[in-house]
């Protein structure tokens, strides 16, 4: 009799379990049949009426059924939970192709980027960054650089004067003279001098009355022209790529002797010849030379003992070449559509 009850219970539970589709229904089922006050417990209350022989047999059967049911319920629970999780994930699915929330970002000015890059290359070569005033004396801007008053070369860079003796610097070279003076004859001098400079030019696509320049200077005993070539080649490779070559062409600056213009392989065509380099394969990026003995002398260095080289380059031109910018005025107009194109750190 009890055996039948138990068997019947098992059959019913298993049948009902099939129908269960939620965790709460499952729990209800568990409480109803195998909970503390469930049907199974109720059935087993009748154990006392059984004969001593029957009791262990029925007891064992009851245990087997309980275990079996618990196991089945547990499995059902796992399955339900899994289904529920999947449903939730399904529900939580979003369109990952929608745009992200805006996080503010912006960039340094392209000229700042070039200047800092050049600074970092030369810092790596042991140079210090030296700076000086943008409003200069005629002495530092010209005379200390071997450009006495009435020197024909003053024509080359018509200047913005404020008084007869004070002007907007036309190059960052006066920082050389100032630094040498400050160093009082000590060597080595290894500096680069970035900054703004000013010349009387009408603003157009390739001219600007204000632009930037980076000047370099190295003075020590035994500095050779071949060292100038070596340093500039190193710079060109760092700045424009490891395959760069450089070429020196004779030129003239009052503060260097000899003076050279320095070409690098064209950054556009790699030296094959294109419009940018006017089919020559070379583009001019800086002027350089060995420091003129009179410049050394005027700043307190004995030219018989010390030699040195100096070079100057224009970040505006470098940035134009490097980024393919066609109009120098963009740098100073600050059109956001221009500035945004340099969003890198």
């Amino acid at each position: 009799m009890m055996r039948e009850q138990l068997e019947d219970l098992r059959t019913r539970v298993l049948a009902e379990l099939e129908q269960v589709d939620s965790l709460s229904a499952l729990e209800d089922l568990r409480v109803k049949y195998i909970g503390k006050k469930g049907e199974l417990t109720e059935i087993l209350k009748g154990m006392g009426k059984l004969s001593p022989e029957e009791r262990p047999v029925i007891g064992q059967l009851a245990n087997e059924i309980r275990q079996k049911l618990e196991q089945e319920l547990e499995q059902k629970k796992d399955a339900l939970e899994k289904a529920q999780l999947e449903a939730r994930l399904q529900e939580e699915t979003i369109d990952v192709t929608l745009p992200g929330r805006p996080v503010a970002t912006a960039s340094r000015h392209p000229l700042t980027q070039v200047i800092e890059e050049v600074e970092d290359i030369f810092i790596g070569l042991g140079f210090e960054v030296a700076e000086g005033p943008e409003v200069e004396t005629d002495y530092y801007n010209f005379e200390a650089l071997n450009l006495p008053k009435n020197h024909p070369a003053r024509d080359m860079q018509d200047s913005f004067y404020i008084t007869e003796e004070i002007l907007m610097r036309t190059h960052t070279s006066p920082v050389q003279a100032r630094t040498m003076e400050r160093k009082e004859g000590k060597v080595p001098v290894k500096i680069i001098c970035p900054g703004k400079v000013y010349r009387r030019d009408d603003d157009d696509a390739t001219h600007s009355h204000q632009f930037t320049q980076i000047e370099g200077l190295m003075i020590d005993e035994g500095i050779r022209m071949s060292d100038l070539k070596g340093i500039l080649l190193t710079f060109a490779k760092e700045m424009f790529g490891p395959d760069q070559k450089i070429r020196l062409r004779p030129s003239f600056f009052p503060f260097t002797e000899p003076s050279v213009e320095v070409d690098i392989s064209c950054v556009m065509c790699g030296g094959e010849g294109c419009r940018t380099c006017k089919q020559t394969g070379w583009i001019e990026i800086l002027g350089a030379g060995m420091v003129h003995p009179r410049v050394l002398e005027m700043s307190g260095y004995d030219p018989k003992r010390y030699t040195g080289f100096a070079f100057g380059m224009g970040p505006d031109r470098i940035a134009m070449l490097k980024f393919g910018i066609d109009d120098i005025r963009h740098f100073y107009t600050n059109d956001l559509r221009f500035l945004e194109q340099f969003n890198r750190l």
Partner: protein
Amino acid sequence: MRVSYKWLSEYIDLSGVTPEELAEKITRSGIEVDVVEPRNRGVTNTVVGYVESKEKHPDADKLNVCTVDVGETEKLQIVCGAPNVDAGQKVPVALVGAKLPGGLKIKKAKLRGVESRGMICSAKELGINDKLLPKEQQDGIMVLPDSWQIGEDVIPLLGLDDVVLELDLTPNRSDCLSMMGVAYEVAAILGREVREPDLTVTEQGDEIDPKVSVRIDAPDHCYRYSARLIENVTLGPSPMWMQNRLIAAGIRPINNVVDITNYVMLEQGQPLHAFDYEAVFGGNIVVRLAQEGETIVTLDDVERTLDPEMLLITDGDKPIGIAGVMGGANSEVTENTRTILLESAHFAGASIRKTSRKLGLRSEASLRFEKDVDPEGVMRALERATQLMVELAGGKVAKGISESVLRGQEPAVVELNLNRLNKFLGMTLSRDTVADILRRLNFDFEETGDQEGTVFQVKVPTRRQDIRLEEDLFEEVARLYGYDEIPTTLPVTVTTPGSLTREQYLRRQVRRILNSMGMKEAMTYTFTSPSMADDVESVFGNLENSDYQPIPLAMPMSEERSVLRVNLLPHLMETAAYNRNRRLEDVAVFEVGNIFLSEEKQLTSLPEERLVLGGLLTGHWVGDHWLQNRQPVDFYLTRGILDALFERLNVDEISYRPVSGLKGMHPGRTADIYVAQERIGYVGQLHPEVQKKYDLGETYVFQLELEKLFARVKDYEMYRPLPRFPAINRDLAVVVDGDLAHADLQAKIREAGGKWLESVHLFDVYSGEGIEEGKKSMAFSLVYRDPEKTLTDEEVNEVHDGVVRVLEEAFGARLR
């Protein structure tokens, strides 16, 4: 300098070197050749024709029908529209099948019904710069010399079978402002000989003395003045070969005498001047400085007012020329001139330069004189020109030269030490190599040698005024040997650490920090307009309440860019307006740059350059986005950016103090920024009127003095141990007067909170329903902690109640 290839080859053998090759070689060894320009711009099949007859075109007023002999059996009928065409002329005729510059092809044609076979050409049609031709040649067809053979090809006759090399000379190479100078340069490059022209003069006239006398009264301005007298000259056009060369060089032929002076100047580099002897009173030449206010009418018919620094050529009575710049109209050579007083002089370069500058008058002569010509050129040029006047103007030369020579110049001797040369260049050039280069340069030298090595004593010719130092010779050797041959080495010196200064490093940090928060870096001009300089308060104050004035440029290029900026903001405001005009309305930019301050009206010392950070935000911060609405920029965003900047730079003790009197700023929305007790700048909204002036919407700006800020940056800080005891949090909401400043309330809380109060954080400000009119509720979250022990509730309550009491007493605050 425009160098004719054909002319040059008269002084040096150029065989085997094309003009293009020559240009490349010249460029690579020191003088940039800008352009290689064929004089023939595309003329073919054009010959000398003879106009036998000219008749009016039957159907066209302005056309003539010409019969032209071009050396063929058949005469050509050519219709010509030029007013100056006439029978008996020799003219250039482009034959049928000829090509002319600009792609024009000559075909058999009918013009208003009349057949025309060929074209009679103007100079312009032949590609000749007609500005360089006499007026009568510009207006119509070119009339050729009678002596030219009918049917001959005009291309060589007009010198069009030539190529011009345009040299871009650096100021040190004024020796190459002459064909001879270029010849010496090319000789050095090619290793060939220079052929100097013959300078023999045959004197046939009387003694020059006493017909001419020369006196120099300004010995610092004129070192030498030499003159010859050429009588019986016949004025007329110079020969075509000479005209062709002048045109190739860019100089307009005038007449034989003037052309000769120009020709010799181009050849020798020494400017000359020809006076009409009859106009020179008594044949006296007196070289002296002008008197203040003295005037002279120059050859260009302009009256020039002179000053006592300007050098004049006079006849003892009146000025007849501005020395080295331009002759006077009163002594000009005209078609009636019969006797020429020919000047060849050596003037001080600086003097000529100054005069030419002051007068704004530049000539081929002044261009050369101001760069210190070869003093030995005086005689060469005088003799060469005299010789040509005999040859081409039929003159008779008076015996002797009248001259005054105050200062001569010996060739400079410069030592070239072979060891030093090699050490300087980083090379190992041999004695022979260097000697060969010196020879190619035509520099005489003596060699002295000792154990130390070879030393060359180099005698530098006077034509090379740019070589005075050993390094100048190093350059000559290096450039002619080739810079490509110099090896690449790295300096052998002590190792130095490269670095940025603290300020340079911090400047970079400021840029990066602001970038990271979405502000773009701008770069604007230093020059600005006086009216804009002070539209808005600068960091130091404004121009009205300070002794500063914007520093003006002496000669600005425009009013817009006439003074140095005293303020970073106006140009940032302009930047914002520029972008707004292009519908880029959301602008967040900053600039790091100098402002220029001086209290002097006329600068006697350099102005102060103050490094300033300026920033501007306008429009929206977060643009349209599907998740959030556009957020207009406001004061608290701007301040938030600054707060973050200060935090990241590690600057403490920042306070914002309301300020209402700043020029151009909103009186209720501006704060001075202090670090401890020092003001370092301000932040706030632009005054609505300023916004309107710049056509901007609500705009927030800030300016900081970076040096002051950087002085407050703590470079690093010691680590603080993590707290070992728990904190206790208490919230505090009080109702206070509506205009009570948060800063004051917060300061009071901190003061009353004592040493246990770790932090105070405002989390709500509210006014409106439930709060009485004119009041507001402010809610703070307070954190109490004792680093030494765990605080009990009772301990915290006591302190916290104290805080409430203090606020009640100080501000009449009421707990909410």
